[in-house]
């Protein structure tokens, strides 16, 4: 029984909302990046090269969604390491609260803010969608939340190994950003050199991009079972690993 889970989750959400910089980084940054890039790439202009239209219409929303997901992971790693360094995790452990309750509260908090940011992105992105084009929002939201849960498990592994809170963000960035770089978002996987392509197939972001792209293009889930399986495998393996190596103090 996860006693105290909702209370702790609610408190963690309020605490997060009270920190202006973190809140801006989480809610504001992806939206700003999205809007600025969209403007730079031609915005509303009706005469748009087909290639550019593809980028603005497909790759940009997926990139923004990935930023949201990655932001959640970075924030999780930072918060967990600050809590550990400050003895907050240890203090919570000296109560009847279950360890999994503490960690679940953070995952739920991150998912709620992911959903909030996605809502803001949707509002900001309404104007770039051509007349008559249907955007499968519900499907895309499910794909993004599922992806985020799986990537958060990677965050717990990183949070288990970072030595101090000071290094948490840089180390997490160093691990995550290259994965985004070779995820097939910016450069098609087929165009990557053989070795890099092989490595990309081992990274969860590659499957996340494929799943999100599929959801955005309204492809059936059945076409992306491989992506779902790969992300689930990531979730299971990372959860198992962090259960083994997670440090409370």
């Amino acid at each position, binding site marked *: 029984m996860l006693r*105290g889970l909702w*209370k702790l989750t609610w408190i963690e959400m309020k605490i997060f909302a*009270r920190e202006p910089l973190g809140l801006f980084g989480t809610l504001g940054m992806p939206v700003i990046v999205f809007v600025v890039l969209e403007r730079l790439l031609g915005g509303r202009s009706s005469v748009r090269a087909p290639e550019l239209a593809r980028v603005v219409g497909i790759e940009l929303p997926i990139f923004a969604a990935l930023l949201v997901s990655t932001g959640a992971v970075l924030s999780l790693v930072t918060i967990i390491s600050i809590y550990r360094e400050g*003895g*907050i995790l240890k203090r919570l*452990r*000296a*109560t*009847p609260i279950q360890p999994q309750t503490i960690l679940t509260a953070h995952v739920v908090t991150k998912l709620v803010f992911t959903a909030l940011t996605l809502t803001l992105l949707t509002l900001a992105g309404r104007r770039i969608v051509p007349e008559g084009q249907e955007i499968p929002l519900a499907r895309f939201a499910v794909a993004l939340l599922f992806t985020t849960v799986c990537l958060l498990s990677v965050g717990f592994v990183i949070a288990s190994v970072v030595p101090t809170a000071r290094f948490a963000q840089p180390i997490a960035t160093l691990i995550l950003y290259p994965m985004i770089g070779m995820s097939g978002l910016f450069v098609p996987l087929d165009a990557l050199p053989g070795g890099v392509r092989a490595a990309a197939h081992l990274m969860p972001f590659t499957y996340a991009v494929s799943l999100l792209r599929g959801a955005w293009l309204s492809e059936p889930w059945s076409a992306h079972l491989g992506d779902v399986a790969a992300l689930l495998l990531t979730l299971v393996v990372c959860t198992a690993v962090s259960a083994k190596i997670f440090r409370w103090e």
Partner: protein
Amino acid sequence: MIDPVVRVDGIRKMYGRLVAVDGVSFEVQRGEIFGLIGPNGAGKTTTLECVEGVRRPDGGSIAVLGLDPIRDRRALQRRIGVQLQSAQLQKRITVGEAIDLWRSLYDSPLDGAALLDQLGLAAKRDAWFMTLSGGQRQRLFVALALVNDPEVVFLDELTTGLDPQARRAIWALVRGIRDRGKTVVLTTHSMEEAERLCDRVAIIDHGRIVEIDSPEALVARHFPAGRIAISDTKWLPPTLEDVFLKVTGDAMRD
């Protein structure tokens, strides 16, 4: 004879090659204020954290209220209150939220508002943890340790870094806990605190207990003359600090 509230039997704890606790044994009776005192790095906190179930000893056995702190951790956590050394809370959690959260973890918690009132924190209910003074933080931690109306309360360096007023207020509080029939186990650096507050103290050094008794009995045993020479012409009554220095030596510790 009634079973002791805390029974520690020959516990050992190593950190790598460092022996932090080396065969510590003691018992604490119901209604006592029991103090663990010792130089820095003597093993006080490690001993206390093993008793609280926060740390697993490498050897020996511990029973608190007849329960094993590791095996019966969850059952025990409901019946004890813990204040950890240099603990923190989330920077932006309010005093009221912390109390609410802690109350939600127990079956029949005390009234939160009354507890805050009693600890002089009623006006700070909506204040963020990061804005509290050292004394206010310690009082909040005492409140959290008491929220489940525990039978035993563990307090680790409760008054370190506090001004005399805050210290006195917290001492009165600890006596109040004992007067309500609870048992208190604490660690401290302050010999004055141990002398004034504790019914019995154990002096720990290099992971072992070197003395254990009431402060008065320890002073009487080590200084039967009842006075010590400060200079050729000046004599003073001996204190627990004199006993402490006599048994642990005056070499500086880490």
